[in-house]
């Protein structure tokens, strides 16, 4: 065949592929809601929506550090670059004020914005797609009721080709399962409601399930634990999760603390603060379902205290002067809910991230709730001193191998603690 005929054939093939791709990925724009065409505020409905927003933890991602609630702009580092959360206040220019409920529902269920563009699955629409019509209806009403904030969120910083949004159509094809959950008949209504929340709005798997190379949750490793924001979200299912029962989980989720396990810290602390505002029956249902993911034969952590640990005199002095007063007593919880380290889960985890970050930052999320409080040690102890203390508690209060990469974890924790100022 003559070269120019091959050239034409290739061009035609590319045009056909292009047309097919366009046809497969194109989504229609949904008309903007006119300014005078807004529905009246239904207080009761918006209140229901508020409760759902606490369960969905919406404000945590959609509020920037020191930003206005729901006005977006939180920068989230991902393996694909930095993504910034969107402004979901009713502002007509910079928020979702022109979005009809149909547009909102499409975003929540399919990850498509009002204009037909693809949203990145950092927004966990693959979970929100399980939400029923009533809940979407209430959430829409709630989001229309929050103060409109004029805040133009800066563009994402994604590396090529991840900045090409239509490629997400391929991701959705592989990983978006829009099928609603059917109730399991031999389980209680409470369990089924918990499942509806956990797999849906509360999107626990978005943090607690490890992700594959395309950033999707690995269905074969559901709830097996994963890193999030340099903290470790521990497993919720299987052997590692066995020490929790439903009552302890319910207590922990609603208050951020359980006396048999300790305090929620890092991103989980924010989640617990939001869940403390959600209906208690919903939080209990979440606890019941989550506890069922592991068979909770053990009701609590078996205390471990290896007592005499070979450590330098200096480390011993630091332990006594900084930590022991609150954390050494194994008989009961210490001041401000200081957990006896003999039953600390963080000390036994494969990742040192949670223990280190708690030492560096302390726990300060519950100030307004009168919950657990711990001072941070970032300015009191050096990196080496934190490393020595971390290994000390690891050897004394667990039977696991020494933590590796401790220096990296500590210096990363220190720079993000300083970055928060």
């Amino acid at each position, binding site marked *: 065949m003559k070269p120019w005929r091959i050239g034409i054939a290739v061009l035609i093939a590319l045009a056909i592929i292009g047309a097919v791709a366009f046809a497969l990925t194109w989504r229609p724009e949904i008309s903007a809601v006119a300014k005078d065409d807004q529905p009246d505020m239904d207080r009761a409905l918006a209140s229901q929506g508020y409760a759902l927003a606490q369960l969905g933890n919406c404000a945590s991602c959609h509020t920037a550090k020191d930003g206005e609630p729901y006005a977006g702009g939180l920068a989230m580092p991902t393996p694909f670059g930095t993504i910034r959360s969107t402004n979901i206040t009713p502002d007509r220019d910079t928020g979702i004020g022109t979005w009809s409920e149909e547009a909102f529902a499409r975003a929540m269920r399919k990850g498509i914005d009002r204009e037909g563009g693809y949203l990145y699955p950092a927004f966990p629409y693959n979970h929100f797609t399980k939400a029923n019509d009533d809940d979407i209806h209430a959430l829409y009403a709630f989001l229309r009721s929050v103060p409109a904030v004029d805040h133009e969120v800066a563009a994402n910083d994604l590396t090529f080709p991840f900045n090409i949004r239509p490629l997400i159509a391929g991701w959705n094809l592989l990983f978006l399962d829009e099928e609603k959950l059917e109730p399991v008949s031999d389980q209680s209504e409470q369990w089924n409601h918990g499942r509806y929340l956990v797999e849906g709005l509360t999107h626990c798997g978005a943090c607690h399930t490890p992700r594959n190379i395309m950033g999707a949750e690995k269905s074969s490793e559901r709830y097996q634990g994963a890193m999030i924001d340099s903290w470790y979200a521990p497993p919720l299912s299987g052997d590692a999760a066995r020490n929790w029962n439903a009552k302890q989980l319910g207590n922990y989720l609603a208050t951020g603390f359980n006396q048999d396990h300790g305090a929620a810290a890092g991103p989980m602390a924010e989640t617990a603060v939001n869940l403390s505002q959600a209906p208690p029956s919903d939080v209990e249902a979440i606890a019941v379902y989550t506890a069922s993911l592991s068979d909770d034969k053990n009701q609590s952590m078996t205390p471990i205290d290896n007592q005499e640990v070979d450590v330098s*005199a200096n480390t011993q*002095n630091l332990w006594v*002067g*900084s930590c022991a007063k609150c954390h050494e007593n194994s008989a009961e919880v210490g001041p401000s809910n200081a957990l006896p380290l003999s039953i600390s889960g963080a000390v036994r985890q494969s990742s040192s991230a949670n223990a280190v970050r708690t030492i560096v930052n302390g726990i300060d999320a519950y100030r307004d709730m009168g919950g657990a409080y711990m001072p941070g040690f970032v*300015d*009191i102890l050096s990196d080496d001193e934190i490393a020595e203390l971390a290994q000390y508690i690891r050897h004394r209060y667990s039977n696991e191998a020494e933590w590796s990469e401790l220096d990296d974890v500590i210096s990363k924790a220190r720079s993000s603690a300083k970055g928060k100022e």
Partner: protein
Amino acid sequence: MSVKIEVNGTVHDIDGDPSMPLLYALRENIGLRGAKFGCGLGQCGACTVHVDGRAVFSCITPIAALEGRAVTTTEGLLEDGKPNKLQQAFIDEQAAQCGYCIAGMVMRAQHLLNQNPDPTDEEILAGMQTNLCRCGTHAAIIRAVKRAARA
């Protein structure tokens, strides 16, 4: 056992257990009684001093952690024996009732202003959150911090 610590520019030889809280060394061994014992657990802030320019709870800082580091107390903020700008602002606003929390409040506020010389009202409130006051002089303390920042 003896541990050397530098406080307000002077090196002191502290005779005692290296796990001893800095607070005790300051008050008992050196005689600097500005910082107070409120809880001993890093929860109230009455013991707040600076280590290398950063506000810390001296009740949970063992002197073993202070080798080669510089401690500053409220006495160390005096300029030529006179109150510095922040301390004078506290005096001008009469921001004390029993006075127990005040040395800690001054050190915390000085840390805040060193990091952020022009804080907003919200930043002042957030920055002072770690320090408790039982007598209720919070409003006067906040006025004092604003006065020092904005005068």
